[in-house]
């Protein structure tokens, strides 16, 4: 394949001109962006080369071989996985040029101001209001479940710009500068003891109209694209035994004294489930790379959550005395999400969020039933009703 050879040559050229051993991570990633090797399917000048998406794997493989640093997805997952594709799809050229490079180098960390206390699964019910004052939007409201808000320089925001139309039609999508004095970021402590998320209070936050993504009133369409990217990112698999099952399988091999007949049955059951989901995830990636629809990404997320919860619970039962202990209840504000780190007690508690974050398992089942299987939609009393007339 000519494209693949061309891309490899470009990677080698990048490595030759910008020795990752001598440059800072930011400097090297900046050079990689400028060479069009950040996301090869993006246009030239915006971190890409306008080539097929699957060539990204070729780039990444070559860079890993060379020991080059990669952008830290655990710190900037929202930026890399959600903001970048949204900017590409809906941003103006000016916005794309301003935001994509520092996003890729992780000099600017992004967070997501979507969910609200009154708008969880029903995200289109957000009540945070943005009112135009000259060429600046003034935003007031409250957001919640914002991971990384305390480290972020930028945020993507969905706010209500018109309350006199049905809920989906009155939303707009913005980029917010997190240094705005109207923002108050407070840690939200979760059942694990740590605060991975935040509550964000917005009081008179000022957003230039130039930082609106997509048209006024089109925020739902823009946000939906972003959320679809999130589901694919969350559902994506990796190597065999890369997830929770790998941690349990290793303990099983290393500590024969933990083995019982009943535990063996359960271990094998979950090993099969995890491996089958991994293979189905691999097929989903092949379908998407071949340009075929992959309606099962919502289903993959469902499977991932079920397994993570069951396997982390099983891991505690496997070693009861250790399972009764916990590594540390100190409230820390973590910089990144970790499903596999820390002790088994932490992993068990953290996994409880997997069936809630990024779309609850119940919503995932609705999505599969309605959009994939074509079953009739739920009864929606707020359909077609202006947002300000819907009981809340």
């Amino acid at each position, binding site marked *: 394949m000519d494209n693949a050879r061309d891309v490899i040559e470009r990677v080698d050229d990048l490595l030759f001109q910008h020795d990752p051993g001598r440059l800072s991570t930011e400097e090297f990633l900046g050079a990689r962006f400028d060479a069009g090797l950040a996301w090869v399917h993006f246009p030239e000048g915006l971190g890409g080369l306008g080539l097929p998406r699957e060539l990204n794997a070729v780039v990444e493989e070559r860079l890993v071989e060379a020991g080059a640093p990669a952008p830290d997805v655990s710190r900037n997952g929202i930026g890399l996985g959600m903001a970048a594709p949204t900017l590409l799809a809906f941003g103006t050229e000016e916005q794309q040029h301003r935001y994509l490079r520092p996003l890729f180098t992780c000099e600017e960390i992004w967070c997501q101001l979507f969910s609200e206390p009154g708008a969880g699964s029903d995200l289109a019910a957000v009540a945070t209001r943005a009112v135009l004052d000259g060429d600046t939007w003034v935003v007031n409201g409250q957001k919640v479940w914002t991971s990384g808000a305390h480290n972020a320089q930028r945020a993507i925001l969905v706010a209500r710009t018109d309350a006199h139309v049905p809920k989906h039609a009155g939303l707009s999508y913005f980029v917010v500068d997190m240094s705005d004095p109207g923002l108050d970021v407070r840690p939200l402590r979760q059942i694990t003891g740590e605060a991975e998320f935040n509550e964000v209070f917005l009081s008179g936050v000022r957003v230039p109209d130039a930082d609106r993504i997509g048209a006024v009133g089109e925020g739902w369409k823009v946000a939906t694209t972003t959320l679809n990217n999130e589901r694919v990112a969350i559902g994506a698999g990796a190597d065999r035994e890369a997830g929770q099952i790998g941690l349990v399988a290793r303990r099983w091999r290393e500590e024969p004294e933990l083995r019982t007949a009943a535990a063996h049955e359960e271990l*094998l059951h979950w090993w099969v489930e995890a491996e089958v989901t991994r293979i189905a995830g691999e*097929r989903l990636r092949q379908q998407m790379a071949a340009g075929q629809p992959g309606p099962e990404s919502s289903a993959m997320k469902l499977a991932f959550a079920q397994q993570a919860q069951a396997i982390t619970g099983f891991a505690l039962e496997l070693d009861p005395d250790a399972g009764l202990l916990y590594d540390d209840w100190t409230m820390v504000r973590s910089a990144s999400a970790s499903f596999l780190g820390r002790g088994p007690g932490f992993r068990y508690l953290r996994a409880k969020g997997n069936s809630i974050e990024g779309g609850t398992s119940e919503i995932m*089942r*609705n999505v599969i039933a*309605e959009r994939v*299987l074509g079953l009739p939609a739920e009864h929606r009393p707020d359909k077609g009703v202006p947002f300000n007339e819907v009981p809340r």
Partner: protein
Amino acid sequence: MSDLLYSDVELSLRDSVRAALRRHAPQEATARLYDDPSAGSSAAWAPLARDLGLAGLLIGEDHGGAGASAREAAVVLEEIGRAVAPVPFLTSAVIATTALAAAGDETFLPSLATGDATAVLVLPWSARAGAWQAGVPGADIAPVAGALDADLFVVPLAGDNELELRGYSRDEVEMTALTSLDMSRQLAAVRTNGDGRLLLGGASATQAVNEALSCGQALLASEQYGIAAWCLETTVDYVKTRIQFARPIGSFQAIKHRLADLFLEVTQAGAVARYAADTRARGDADAATAQALAQAYCSDIAIRAAEEALQLHGGIGMTWEHPVHLYLKRAKADQLALGTPAAHRADLAELVDLPA
């Protein structure tokens, strides 16, 4: 990593097999086998075996076959499962054919390739690779699948010193048809009469039988996926049209969520069955693991899909008239065939180093 998608050639094979099964193996005819087993499988099988060349799909071109791989055979089995078709493709064109090929047979393969003859590996249908017992000459071997319409019987027999793989013709065996849970693959007791003809002996005979069973196990998963896919699709269609409480029952979340879960499981079954077929076709180092994994998973999903289909159809699902019972019976029999899911999990434990 494996190619888990379908090639254009495979998709066109699927279309032809689906059309042929619709014409030659309608569900009503399969249902009639429960009351009149004598109808047998030949009416459905002959056109597929000969006209579509399915009998010789896995046989090399030098013996008059198509020289295709496990990937294409898997596509055929998906359709056979979907149609709950009473044809001996798995028992003859996959399992017995693989045994004969592994035994270096030159005599029988050409007539199998044309569909003029049908063969069967004579072992209890619950046997799996590495866990089966050879028959004893003159004693019943049961329950055997695919024997009733077979012309050639490939029989692993305990010889004086070593295993012998012997070939018998129809008039050299005694056969009793057995009333079976799944009459779309009716079972029989088979007893050899005389010495037949020695095909292979010793360790290589054992290896040929294991090879044949392995191939059957890897590909049975695709039949099970086909059963599950039919059950899911049929049930989704049904709940869209069945009205109770003045609305389609498919608008109730209790039903939507069950079908969403089933969609996930059936989708995963399709992926892992494909993985087993592809690793088998390429002789991949992971083929044995893939086969045990696919069997452990797809066996149970086929039954779950059939049981969910029955429940979500309500009363009509419990009737003889509705075809879902054909799928339930086939799914349950397929679960017990070629090793139970628990047995495959035990194989897996060894293969991936998770000892008991």
